[in-house]
């Protein structure tokens, strides 16, 4: 695999590291199985692409994309905590609704951004020579900042309250925590991160497409699972680190699998490979336990 191809894989891996951090918040911290990602990722992309194509500043576009994602996550949580709709179902409703909303925002199935200014432009020369290096570098900075901010937040009073909400809601309420508000806030935070990923993604790919969200949640979950399988940890800053590494590793593995000619895989096999990979990551702890048990018997 060439250097450029590897950097390309890392670039997408970094985008999905943000998705994975969002998924970590919903699935693992709030214990809220949330499929909104498949709608909030393209929502972020649609908002950012439309604004940038309309001549707006790309940084403002990212910020507004995050707010839109936060609103989407808030809606999913609201359907659950206020209307008592099952978590999974709430998120599917919002995800489906977002498909129409995204089409409305873009006003077309896709919005090209060829030649438009992006958050990366100030650091890339006019000849676009250095973009293969600058884009992953900027994304890495964003991901590291997001990871560190989350670490600080989850060590704060409000962050601890959010973790208690997911871990033991009854106990959390007994300690005076409004679990409803925490769920609303946490889901908004989760989907704001996922929408930011979508906003950055369209700027690396040169445009937004209505179908760009398909499978987002599976990839995010894959990253979380790979991370926690490879680096089983209890303390949160290690868990966020593992999640980021999981996302990177996932994309690099995919790139290798698709690039290795002797395996004979093509781009259309991506989802199959993902499913196999997630499946493998899911049974890995079981295999490990079995291996340990076998060792225990012989010892």
């Amino acid at each position: 695999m060439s250097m450029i191809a590897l950097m390309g894989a890392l670039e997408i891996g970094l985008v999905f590291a943000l998705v994975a951090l969002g998924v970590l918040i919903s699935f693992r911290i709030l214990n809220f199985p949330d499929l909104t990602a498949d709608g909030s990722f393209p929502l972020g992309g649609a908002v950012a692409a439309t604004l940038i194509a309309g001549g707006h500043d790309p940084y403002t576009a990212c910020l507004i994309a995050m707010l839109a994602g936060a609103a989407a996550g808030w809606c999913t949580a609201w359907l659950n905590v206020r209307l008592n709709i099952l978590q999974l179902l709430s998120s599917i409703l919002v995800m489906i609704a977002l498909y129409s909303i995204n089409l409305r925002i873009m006003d077309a199935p896709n919005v090209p951004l060829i030649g438009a200014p992006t958050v990366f432009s100030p650091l890339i020369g006019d000849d676009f020579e250095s973009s293969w290096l600058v884009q992953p570098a900027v994304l890495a900075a964003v991901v590291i900042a997001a990871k560190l901010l989350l670490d600080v937040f989850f060590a704060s009073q409000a962050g601890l309250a959010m973790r208690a909400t997911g871990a033991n809601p009854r106990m959390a309420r007994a300690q005076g925590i409004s679990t409803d508000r925490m769920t609303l806030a946490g889901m908004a935070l989760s989907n704001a991160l996922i929408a930011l990923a979508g906003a950055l993604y369209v700027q690396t790919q040169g445009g937004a497409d209505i179908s760009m969200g398909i499978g987002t949640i599976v990839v995010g979950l894959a990253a979380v699972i790979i991370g926690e399988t490879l680096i089983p940890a209890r303390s949160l800053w290690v868990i966020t680190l593992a999640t980021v590494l999981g996302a990177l590793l996932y994309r690099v593995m995919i790139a290798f699998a698709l690039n290795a000619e002797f395996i004979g895989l093509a781009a259309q096999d991506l989802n199959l490979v993902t499913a196999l990979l997630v499946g493998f990551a899911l049974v890995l702890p079981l295999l490990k336990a079995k291996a340990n048990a076998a060792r225990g018997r012989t010892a």
Partner: protein
Amino acid sequence: MLAAHNLTKTFNPGTPIENPVLRGLSLTIESGQFVTVIGSNGAGKSTFLNAISGDVVPDSGTLAIDGQDVTRLPSWQRAGLVARVFQDPMAGTCEALTIEENLALAWQRGQKRGLGPAVKKAQRELFRDKLSTLKLGLENRLADRMGLLSGGQRQAVSLLMASLQPSRILLLDEHTAALDPKTAAFVLELTDRIVHENKLTTLMVTHSMRQALDHGERTVMLHQGRVVLDVDGDARARMQVADLLSMFEKTRGETLDDDALLLG
């Protein structure tokens, strides 16, 4: 002061499994009083405690704490008034969080939570001091996950958590039921100490007649969602476990008779 007036609660109303659990329960407890609560399975003891904590909303009746009507206040909004320890050692703490994180959650019970660090250095010292009074060696295990502790250790920490912040009412629902006799005795002793030191208004549910008479200064018996016995002072001091048991059997016998009549 806790004032419950004519509380009623029916689970699954209007269905074949309709279950009237509280049927006009009234009880007033003075500030600082330690009351033990007994009653057969299904008498409504836990439901009553859940109504006080806000986990169950009564169908009718009123509930006031220190004169403030809390009948319909959500549980998280009255956490500053009510502290509780659950029967299940898992229920009162977060096993995925560390001991100090659990204590930090309780340290802020009923208060606003901001973006400041959850555990500050001064608090860590305080937690360590408090934990050392348990004499379980937990003061050296602040960073251990709660899930690593035994049931008895968790209940001891739960009690400590309930007393970190002042509250008006302490609710203990069979909080020693899941423990072996020795650990149960230890947790009960700790309960007496914490209640006494903090002058807490306390309701303790127990299935042990011995505990009901040995702890606190007043005993009430619930039956079919009502108070059927309420003793304190001399009458209670003279009471033996056998007396209480026979009264307990009598109320249960009455229900059997009622049922027999209905069936007959």
